[in-house]
């Protein structure tokens, strides 16, 4: 259901969308059932002139089942949804697949710095590529990121990946994603980080292998080694 609102572009985005649909169907069933019963009762029992005994006695006997049976059914639905949620959560946030590429994502007020390995494929070597407010990745490669913050809380949010992770100063938080579609998409900061939080945007470029290699070549010649003085605020 979510993919009609926003394309999905990572290996686990489809599972999150699927979980969303399942939850929507389950809660939608209860929601519609309850609202229909609710509205029906309102219209059915409009001001009546029946004898008081019948009004007083309804709801005293077996009608309690109408509450107790849904009560147990809701428990069953909850267990089912918990099972689904935990499964998808573990895949996205706990199980860490073998990484093809390791990158570093550094957040600060109010810019994103992305450090990725250069042609040698190893992070923290002299040919690392540093980009600001744009992240170039190759489609169908598994990326592992190390997320850091230099000042306050930020949040590395990539809606098309269905990925979100707070960056906490003093901690290095690892996570992963595997892009599955090419294209250009938003990267957001999704945690209030001060006066320019609203413009802390970056752009994600998911590229085919050949395009990505070509980009690496051009940028390797022009890229400056990473230092804080190279940081400029977006826009």
């Amino acid at each position, binding site marked *: 259901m979510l993919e009609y609102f926003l394309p999905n572009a990572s290996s686990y985005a489809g599972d999150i969308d699927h979980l969303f649909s399942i939850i929507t169907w389950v*809660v939608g069933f209860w929601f519609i059932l309850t609202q229909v*019963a609710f509205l029906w009762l309102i219209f059915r029992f409009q001001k009546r002139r029946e004898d008081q005994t019948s009004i007083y006695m309804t*709801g005293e006997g077996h009608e309690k089942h109408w509450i107790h049976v*849904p009560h147990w059914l809701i428990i069953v639905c909850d267990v089912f949804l918990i099972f689904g949620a935990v499964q998808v959560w573990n895949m996205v946030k706990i199980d860490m697949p073998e990484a093809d590429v390791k990158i570093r994502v550094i957040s600060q007020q109010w810019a994103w710095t992305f450090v990725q390995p250069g042609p040698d494929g190893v992070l923290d070597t002299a040919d690392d590529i540093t980009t600001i407010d744009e992240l170039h990745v190759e489609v169908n490669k598994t990326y592992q990121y190390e997320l850091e913050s230099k000042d306050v809380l930020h949040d590395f949010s990539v809606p098309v990946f269905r990925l979100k992770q707070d960056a906490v100063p003093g901690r290095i938080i690892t996570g992963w994603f595997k892009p599955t579609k090419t294209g250009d998409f*938003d990267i957001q900061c999704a*945690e*209030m980080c001060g006066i320019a939080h609203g413009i802390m945007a970056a752009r994600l470029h998911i590229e085919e292998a050949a395009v990505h290699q070509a980009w690496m070549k051009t940028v390797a010649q022009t890229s400056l080694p990473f230092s804080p003085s190279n940081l400029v605020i977006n826009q």
Partner: protein
Amino acid sequence: MSGSDHDHHGPTNFWSKYVFPLDHKIIAMQYLFTGIFMALIGGFMAYAFRMQLAFPGQEVPLFGVVTPQNYNSLITNHGSIMIFWVAMPVLVAALGNYLIPLMIGCDDMVFPRINRLSYQVFLLSIVVLFASYCVPGGGFGGAWTSYPPLAGNADYNLTPLGAPLWLLAIALEIVAFLLGGINFITTVMNSRAPGMKMYDIPMVVWMIVIASILFMASVGPLIAGAVMLLFDQLIGTKFFTTAGGDPMLWQHLFWFFGHPEVYIVLLPAMGVAIEIITTFSRKKLFGYKEILFTTFFTGILSFFVWAHHQFVAGIDPRMANIFTVTTLLISIPIGHMLFAMIATLYGGSIQLKTPMLWALAFIGEFLIGGVTGIHLGASATDIFFHDTYFVVAHFHYTFFPSAIIGTFAALYYWFPKMFGRMMDETLGKIHFWGTIIFFNCIFIPLFALGMSGQHRRIYDYRNFPDLNTPELQNLRIFATISLVCMMIFQIPFLYNFFVSMFKGEKAGKNPWNSNTLEWITDSPPPHGNFGHHMPEVYRGPYEYSHPDKKNQDYWPQNEPN
């Protein structure tokens, strides 16, 4: 019984009667009118930042251009005001003060002076809050959750005075409500009319008492956290910094209070809806004890769900699974309560008077907030939805039904008792439909925006190409126009409220033919509430249409068999 030395004439001097009152009804009115005033301010803030979202960069009529600093400050204070200075004073303090002594049949609160102090501290907190807007740097803009290190360090938040003043205002407000909470619980436990057993207490009183217990049990960590954060801001301690402390600690302290707070606001509104639904369907409450026990269960469970606000905040991801379980389980008692309220309608004789419309709307709208909570409580979908407009829409579907719809239900229902006159039904219905329809028009588009990936607290979406599409912008404009329309529909209410207060049709003692004790005294009740005939209680509060009671379909709690 409380205050047996109380004289039943009461003070006649204007100052001692209205400015420094000890009478619980006058203190309730102080809270009520202050809450309504703050609601107008909080609503105006919503108008200003919604206009900025719909028409970015343009001058907002009555406000001016919204700068990023303005925007952050507006959203922060809109949230703080609506929760701490509208929902709590009106639902807990005003209703609690007004209803508890009247509904349990005593002459006043057991600690009237603490009660007066509570409002005075509350008023002081508002003065401090307003002061925070007028200092160099402007009002605090770090969101109502006030996460450090942003909130703790002026180098980051750029509001060196606004942030501490805001925090001080919150702390004072909490002190005020602790004083009030002590009073509510003690009064209900000690001063009930003779004969009123635990299961004869009207549900709204139970709900306010349980809300007060939740508040007192949850707020300790927050007030400790607030003092530590204040020290971080003012004297350079390092509780919530990486140099010695931990920023995440604040989040735990905050949400350990923050989630029970949701139920603190919800429960009184549920109690209001229960009183009204039983009265206007002339029917006994379906499952009094079940509702009471599920409420206690909800309250207890609400202490074990807080980290669902922090799924992606950097907590150990294995911990999220535990909180997914507790969070989804809370659907069971809440669902049970709502089902019982709906089942009360079954076989009743329903009259759709204005208070009843509001009470029913509370159930219908709250259901939307309830079911969308499952999407967010499920950790995996919350990865995507955390801090999006889906969350914004979800919690407005829980807070608006509680704080606004519940308040209107209570006002229309108890207005005759408070002021001795009836409100106009036609204006009430215009107000009802205008508010409900446009409320949905504001927030349903926000679900769609959240599903499209729109994140919160962003003052201008033109910086995000995926969000800067005409379709999404149209949804934003639609929501903003709906907000303006909903605000216009509050004019009939304000007119109705203030004109009916003086010119409305005279209400008798018991215009709705209701059972609870507040309806046996005069409208408005005199000082001391029941004159010289303090009531005794012979039965539960919901004995409507009882077959043994001839000639009338209600049986007040104080009438002997």
